[in-house]
């Protein structure tokens, strides 16, 4: 209980203020501010073109915002503005204390490297040089994401979409990141596989106390995974709050439209 209890004492992990990014005259995202604490899961929803992917790219250091600041509480240095961090430091952060799960596993995996090698890359990148230990750790993670250990040496191209996505998650979580960015993690998967992945993600996030930012257009996914929700439209955050609050009692006209447009099974 103590681990969860401490939530209120934990400092803010990521503090985003006034982040804007435009492409010429085209607005990507506009004046976005929020903060996230350890163990919190934040969902960002909005239709295609609402700026959620631009925002995620800015947050995860893949895109330079035009204005604003992104303060991250680094493990060894405390709060640092990510935009002032040098590129090698940012790249190092991105493969140790952060995780990035892409919608398309092809963007996040090495398709011609075995599953074990994919998971082992991050530990090797930060200096692990004992084959036996690297492999044991990789297999431990493959087990956690429910990939049969007989597939350790198979290449991801022989895996199903769901397995690839789970492998991507293992590859990211092996360094025990404190913040994970997910871009439509259940995007290309069929519903039955989605359910399993959602359950797995929820369990891992809870077990490891990871903070996560999940971008999706699937409201059912955020309802199950996210504690908090931000709704974006034309680059702006138009409504935010507790996930169930925003979905059950939406105030903004656009959110009401979004929520009432969901097809029922």
């Amino acid at each position, binding site marked *: 209980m103590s681990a969860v209890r401490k939530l209120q004492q934990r400092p803010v992990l990521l503090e985003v203020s006034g982040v804007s990014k435009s492409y010429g005259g085209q607005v990507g995202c506009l004046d976005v501010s929020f903060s996230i604490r350890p163990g919190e899961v934040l969902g960002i929803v909005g239709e295609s073109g609402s700026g959620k992917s631009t925002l995620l790219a800015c947050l995860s250091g893949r895109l330079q915002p035009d204005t604003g600041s992104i303060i991250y509480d680094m493990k060894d240095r405390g709060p640092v503005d990510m935009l002032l961090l040098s590129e090698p430091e940012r790249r190092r952060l991105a493969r140790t204390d952060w995780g990035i799960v892409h919608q398309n596993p092809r963007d996040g995996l090495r398709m011609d490297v075995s599953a074990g090698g994919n998971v082992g890359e991050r530990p090797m990148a930060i200096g692990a040089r004992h084959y036996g230990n690297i492999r044991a750790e990789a297999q431990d993670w493959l087990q956690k994401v429910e990939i049969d250990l007989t597939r350790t040496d198979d290449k991801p191209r022989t895996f199903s979409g769901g397995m690839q996505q789970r492998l991507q998650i293992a590859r990211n979580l092996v360094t025990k990141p404190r913040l994970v960015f997910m871009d439509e993690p259940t995007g290309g998967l069929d*519903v039955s596989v989605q359910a399993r992945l959602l359950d797995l993600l929820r369990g891992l996030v809870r077990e490891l106390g990871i903070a996560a930012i999940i971008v999706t257009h699937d409201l059912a996914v955020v309802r199950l995974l996210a504690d908090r929700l931000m709704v974006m439209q034309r680059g702006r955050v138009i409504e935010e709050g507790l996930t*169930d609050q925003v979905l059950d009692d939406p105030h903004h006209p656009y959110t009401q439209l979004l929520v009432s447009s969901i097809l029922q099974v």
Partner: protein
Amino acid sequence: MTIIRLHARGLSKTFTLHTQGGTTLPVFEDIDLQVRSGECVCLHGPSGAGKSTLLRSLYANYKPQSGSVMVQHDGEIVDITAAEPWKVVEIRRFTIGYVSQFLRVIPRVPVLDVVAEPAITNGRSVEEAHAAARTLLTRLRIPERLWSLAPATFSGGEQQRVNIARSFIVAYPILLLDEPTASLDAENRKTVIELICEAKVRGAAVVGIFHDAEVRDAVADRLFEIRSTHREPTEIPCKPVPDLPTIEAVA
């Protein structure tokens, strides 16, 4: 046993339906409700009076226009309507349990895990949580052969019992119950009454909606009449407020 666990003050709620021409639906106004430790308050009023809306507002599921909901949480008094989202999440983890009318969980997760989850989230060991889940499921007469199955295929009554088990696995100091016995048979109704009474004995403050007179008489200490701020009947179509499309639309 006289601690006030939950105190709603001046609570008002109005829905504005932007998708339907900006219609406003006032539900209730200036509600004042105090619930003490060990007390069970039954929300009372005709269908459409706003009972569920009030209950959801107490859980911070709905955002009231004005007023506050003070709850005793972890030795301090917090206004849940004004608290930061992470604080609300924490309050819901440890302080307020809510039994909705419908079970809403990740598909394809076995019943035992569904029930044990809130306890595990609160830091109990998996073994402990599973043991507690087994006890509750047994009491609620969910046959053991169903425990390893996902609840999606269960009957309405079975799903409701799983829902109840999930909400009673943590000893919340405040319990909000939205028709917990709606689709249950007499035997299971009795079990739920027992569970509620046990919660009262351990000092929980309970707020509930009970349509069933038998249950109401067995658990409620007092009735709380909702004076709905009723509007011109012509303005609202025959749509009862708690069933707004936005409420259940998200599957």
